[in-house]
């Protein structure tokens, strides 16, 4: 999955900018053998991994059997819905570059709702980041405890969880917008163009950061577990390495994004 995800990220955020990947781009891509299959496999892997992770997060806190059964049912339904939508989009998607109207071309509320949702999410994210940074700074300046955040492992875990949930949230929106490609290519163009709103540019950078960090941290944990005894002292240095590599990979993407917009 890591290979698929990083490959897709490279194409969409390094080779191109997201706002330039309209219906025509998708149509051209899907005329080349293998790309449709690539995108479908990526969707299935990412959706399964993301929903399994989020499901685990909910089950940590929800202990009563009836509530757990409800959560299990909701996630099962969600996986069926989004994997079905994504599979349908990939299966019936254009086999030639096109930008003509589709059966849903009149539903202009769809891109409006998607962009509005992203703007709302961005606002919450910016407020949460600002609030967290302010609280952390205040405690550090007063030299008062910052709880378990004294431990590097806590940062690794916390950042990975936030990144994973954030990427899943975007993935679900992305499944919805790609579903517009065969149904209303013009509306898909409008949605993708909305990603270039200056207000959302930091969220695009955050998305790239989240994907890269979550992938590299996951790889780090797999390696540490596989090597077990030989990695006793490697947890903290490996986390630092992951952060540094993430930062190095994100910088060019951010430059490309800013130039592209």
């Amino acid at each position, binding site marked *: 999955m890591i290979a698929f995800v990083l490959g897709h990220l490279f194409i969409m955020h390094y080779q191109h900018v997201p706002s330039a990947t309209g219906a025509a781009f998708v149509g051209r891509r899907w005329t080349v053998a293998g790309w449709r299959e690539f995108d479908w496999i990526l969707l299935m892997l990412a959706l399964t991994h993301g929903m399994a992770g989020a499901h685990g997060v909910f089950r940590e806190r929800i202990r009563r059997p009836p509530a757990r059964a409800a959560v299990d049912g909701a996630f099962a339904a969600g996986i069926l819905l989004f994997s079905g939508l994504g599979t349908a989009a990939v299966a019936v998607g254009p086999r030639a570059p096109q930008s003509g109207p589709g059966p849903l071309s009149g539903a202009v509320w769809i891109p409006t709702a998607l962009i509005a949702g992203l703007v709302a999410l961005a606002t919450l994210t910016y407020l949460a980041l600002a609030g967290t940074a302010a609280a952390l700074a205040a405690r550090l300046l007063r030299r008062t405890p910052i709880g378990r955040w004294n*431990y590097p492992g806590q940062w690794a875990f916390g950042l990975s969880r936030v990144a994973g949930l954030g990427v899943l949230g975007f993935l679900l929106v992305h499944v919805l917008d790609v579903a517009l490609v065969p149904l209303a290519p013009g509306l898909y163009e409008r949605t993708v163009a909305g990603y270039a709103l200056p207000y959302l540019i930091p969220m695009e950078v955050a998305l790239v950061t989240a994907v890269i960090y979550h992938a590299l941290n996951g790889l780090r944990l797999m390696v540490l577990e596989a090597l077990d005894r030989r990695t006793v002292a490697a947890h903290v240095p490996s986390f630092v390495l992951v952060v540094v590599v993430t930062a190095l990979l994100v910088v060019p993407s951010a430059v490309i994004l800013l130039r592209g917009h």
Partner: protein
Amino acid sequence: MIFHVKRFDPEADARPSWQAHTVDVRPKMSVLDGLFWILERMDGTLGFRYSCRAGMCGSCAMVVNGREALACRLRLERISGPVYVEPLRSLPVIKDLVVDMAPFFTKYRSVDPFYIGEDPSMTGRIAEPVVVRPDSGVRDVVDQQVGCISCGACYSACPVVALNPGYLGPAALNRAYVLKADVREPSSDDRLALVSGDDGVFACHDVGSCITACPVGVNPLLSIHLLRKGAPHR
């Protein structure tokens, strides 16, 4: 040196609060010595737990400046600035720095934390003692892991324990591994079955804070990794 101690009496207080005391620091004083200073000279109502005062029993485990530590082993000369002392996390507070270790030990007991020989009822007499030569290297497998003093520092530091009330925790899983790796026990999957549920080894998210928090150098995460490799995922 300023000591900020988190005070809380559930029977009298609505919420915890910080209480500051100025402690006259002498050479080689530990955090525990500082607490005794406060108890004997400033506030006789301060509650904290201790026993051996030599880093062996684990009774004085608490959170100092955000990190779990044995108060008797942490020297004040290693701390610059004020000292913030809090009770262990994820455990109910009985009073001030004293926590109820019952949840910790309930989970610890759930992994059958004792040697089970060929006679599980332990009522029979074994014919011959099991021989493990000191130079065989067999003990080396668990040499680091067997040193756990059940102080609860890893349990307190673990964010998964805080998020998942059912998670067994690093100490219990470490103990399970030590016994699973014991060559004297007949090989079986019974021990793995105890730790392979939703709240066992697969609930661990490889945070690693348990490694940093352990005051006696045990690596509970290594035990969890080794258990995972044998545990069926149910």
